[in-house]
């Protein structure tokens, strides 16, 4: 099978997002052929080069998203009219979309809101494809999107009745800013990737992120009918909201851009054959943005389990750790709330005076991280005086700050192995990697109920509310006093992690999803004979029956074996003789 992997600012660039996951996916699915279509985010990223690519990557095509390549085409009268129509429609859909959502809460019921949302999504989608067709037929889209016509269309849409309240206050600089942003976001429309020798030739598009990365996939679906799979570990729309909160823009600009990205996300979710969120949190956002529940398949991110195997499989349950040590591992930054951890440790010391706390990790980049580390160290020194074995020994603090690679902690696994209980005290967390690593190491854990923690830990560790040092302390003391419970929890945690969070499960899941998509929506492609004429009955009639003819073979071998085993030819076009 030929997979078109779509990335934006990610794989195969050295500094890309999620490149590790993509790399594992591509290497793990060696039976498929991968074409990589990468959008780069900055000149620096492009200069830093690519990671080493495995042989199953047959082609890499890149395009800069940070630079507009104006092809110098100036539209004629007819093309200009076509552009004005499409862009006006797009602008109207963007300006109206949130207003409809607002209005539905006041007047209409849920069905009315769903229906009107559907109409807006259709308008947005058809306008988007209209622009893409214009770019393919005539070119010159970059120039047109920057032109006065585009700004004028935006202004008209903002002033139209029923437009979003914030949009009505848009001033000229706001309009220009929005037009520039939309021009940047729609740059993938001008690419020449959608021909028959490009994305038209793949069997399946797999977008490694939502938003702009999935835009080429949408167009491939529109032009060539290639099914689209979207994987989102972090929801792009949410990232956009967080970034826009930091940016100094007027409310009108932020409202319009939020509406644009919301409409784009809805269109991506609507058209995708399947969507794979990385955790429940992403899944909730996707459902909220209009993703059909039936299309969602949560695929947890996979992590390298081998390096924790030695620690995790030590026979004596406790793993040879000091039974009085708590360990915290992570990047030191305010969101991790080490202050709360230190306070709770003070409570722990009241109950179990021999306990020690090891804080392993480097400060986050930038001055803030270093400042926070200094603050934590000062607090630790204040709360806990140095203590020694006897009168003649040199004492030290029960709280130690260490970094991986130091003499005490040579590796990450050693850091986890050194403690009886691993603590996570964050107030904000996405997918808690350090918790998964602790689970791989078979440690008992106490964590705060933030982000995806509950989803990750299941029932195999203690969970307390965030910002509650006393609850954290009580949970720690309970585990410190009960070695058997620690061992039990640790074993359960390791078993859970091995089941859910290994690289293998991730790859197996995607392998299965690829087959599922292709079996349900095979690409309809004309089979031609040697002279280039269409071959009658080139694709057997069975190929159009959804599901059946490929799944018959799958059922024979059974689920686990085909998932891991040899490739199954699930793609149309077959040679004429085989299927008949």
């Amino acid at each position, binding site marked *: 099978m030929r997979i078109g992997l779509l990335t934006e600012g990610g794989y195969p660039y050295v500094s890309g997002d999620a490149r590790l996951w993509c790399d594992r996916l591509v290497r793990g699915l060696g039976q498929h052929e991968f074409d990589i279509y990468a959008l780069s985010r900055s000149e620096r990223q492009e200069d830093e080069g690519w990671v080493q690519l495995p042989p199953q990557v047959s082609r890499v095509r890149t395009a800069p998203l940070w630079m507009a390549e104006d092809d110098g085409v100036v539209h004629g009268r007819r093309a200009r009219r076509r552009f004005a129509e499409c862009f006006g429609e797009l602008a109207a859909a963007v300006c109206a979309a949130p207003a409809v959502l607002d209005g539905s809460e006041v007047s209409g019921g849920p069905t009315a809101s769903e229906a009107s949302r559907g109409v807006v999504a259709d308008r947005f989608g058809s306008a988007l494809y209209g622009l893409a067709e214009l770019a393919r037929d005539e070119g010159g889209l970059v120039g047109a999107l920057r032109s006065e016509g585009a700004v004028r269309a935006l202004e008209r849409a903002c002033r139209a009745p029923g437009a979003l309240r914030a949009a009505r206050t848009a001033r000229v600089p706001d309009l220009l800013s929005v037009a520039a942003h939309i021009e940047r976001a729609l740059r993938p429309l001008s690419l020449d990737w959608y021909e028959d020798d490009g994305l038209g030739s793949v069997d399946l598009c797999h977008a490694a992120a939502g938003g702009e990365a999935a835009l080429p996939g949408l167009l491939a679906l529109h032009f060539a009918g290639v099914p689209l799979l979207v994987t989102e570990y972090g929801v792009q729309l949410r990232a956009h909201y967080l970034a826009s*909160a930091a940016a100094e823009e007027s409310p009108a600009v932020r409202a319009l851009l939020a509406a644009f990205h919301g409409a784009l996300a809805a269109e991506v979710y609507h058209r995708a054959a399947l969507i794979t969120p990385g955790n429940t949190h992403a899944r909730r956002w996707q459902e909220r943005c209009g993703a059909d529940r039936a299309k969602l398949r949560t695929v947890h991110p996979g992590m390298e389990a081998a390096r924790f195997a030695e620690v995790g499989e030590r026979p004596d349950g406790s793993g040879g750790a000091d039974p009085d040590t708590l360990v915290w591992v992570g990047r030191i930054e305010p969101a991790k709330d080490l202050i709360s951890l230190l306070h709770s440790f003070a409570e722990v010391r009241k109950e179990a005076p021999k306990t020690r706390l090891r804080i392993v990790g480097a400060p986050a980049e930038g001055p803030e991280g270093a400042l926070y580390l200094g603050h934590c160290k000062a607090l630790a020194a204040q709360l806990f005086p140095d203590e020694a074995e006897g009168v003649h020994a040199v004492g030290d603090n029960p709280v130690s700050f260490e970094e991986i690679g130091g003499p005490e902690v040579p590796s990450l696994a050693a850091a986890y192995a050194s403690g009886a209980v691993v603590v996570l005290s964050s107030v904000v967390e996405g997918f808690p990697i350090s918790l998964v690593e602790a689970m791989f190491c078979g440690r008992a854990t106490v964590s705060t109920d933030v982000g995806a923690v509950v989803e990750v830990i299941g029932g195999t560790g203690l969970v307390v509310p965030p910002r509650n040092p006393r609850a954290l302390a009580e949970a720690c003391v309970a585990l410190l006093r009960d070695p058997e419970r620690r061992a039990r929890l640790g074993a359960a945690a390791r078993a859970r992690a091995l089941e859910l969070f290994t690289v293998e499960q991730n790859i197996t899941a995607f392998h299965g999803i690829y087959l599922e998509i292709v079996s349900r929506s095979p690409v309809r492609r004309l089979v031609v004979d040697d002279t280039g004429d269409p071959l009658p009955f080139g694709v057997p009639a069975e190929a159009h029956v959804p599901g059946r003819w490929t799944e018959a073979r799958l059922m024979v071998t059974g689920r686990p074996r085909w998932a891991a085993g040899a490739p199954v030819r699930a793609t149309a076009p077959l040679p004429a003789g085989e299927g008949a």
Partner: protein
Amino acid sequence: MSELVRDGSGGARGDAGGDPGNDSGNDSGSDPGGDSGGARTPAGGGRRGAVDPVKALMHRHRELCERAVDPLEIAAGLEAHGVTDRTAARFRHRDVFSLAEEMYARVARDPDPAPPPVAPEHSGARADWAVLSLLPGALCAATVAGLRLTEGQPRLAVAAGGTLAVTLGVRAALRRGPLSTTHRTTSGTLAWTCWLIVYALFGDGLLSVGIEGGPDGPWPPATAPVLALALACAPAAWCAHLFTAGARRKLTVSRGLEEFAVSVRPLLLGAFALFLCALGALLALSREAPSEPGAYNGPGAYAGAGALGALLLLARLLTTRGFTHAPAVVLGAAGAAEVTALTTVFAARLPGCSFVAVPVETVADAWGPGAVPTLVCGAAALVLLIHATRTLTRASAHATPGGTP
């Protein structure tokens, strides 16, 4: 094996305590500790007895709520502050989204939009382009003075060196400041521009000796008008700067595109008129200066240089804002017209072709040879001016180049 200390018991106990230990934590906590005091105020009888817990939450995140453009933005912001669905459950909401929707619906929005942002002033970099814009004039003056003081072989060297220096000076002046551009000018445009300047130097003289049947030897160049043109680089840069700054100011206060266009048009015409005045003054001054003996020094030569200066400024203004096509065409047309005028004068010497020179000779007889470039450049400048009043009054022409938010 499912052991989950859920927040029901633990949280309530922590809140009911309200002991000095917790408070000291708040005081010494830095960022997360800063608002942690409020985070422990759940619905239903926290220690502060909040009747309306959502109101307290809104107060804590009031900036987020006031800034938010839709409920999802509040939801994203709340999540970034550690609010989860389980926290939302304490506010009697199914999830963060519905909590955010309530907050969005309840927040009192300012009916008046925020005052328009003040355009940023870049005064620091002003000095260097202002100085650089004086460079061509200074170099040209030095060259002209050198030409006056030298004779023979050294004179040629001074002329060559001066030409090179002025060219480099003009390049440097156009690299920085309001006349600089990131849009590529074609080599054709560049060549026609050079030709127009060369014509200003030699063209009038060649035309007049050509009509009289010459040339019989080298004829002196008209250095004074070209000196005035080089000196005019500085007012050109200032006028362009005035126009740019004014347009940016109008941009920030305009509510609509039409309003912007209406308010920018007088600005453009004003800046252009200001430049014409400055150029006229410079031309008048340079006419007073002692000129090359024998050079054509009629008023027509100065009018031609003035028209050329106006044409070049308009072309540059259009080019800096990305409209490269029209200046290229118009400069090309003007250059071609001057070539034609010269060619017809010499082509008239061919037998039977004397009629081709009639128009040029008529014009030159009536107003002097300087009338040819005046008419050509003036017409071209007029065309560009009309074009500029339509294009440079568009808001999209004044967008910053890397205008991505």
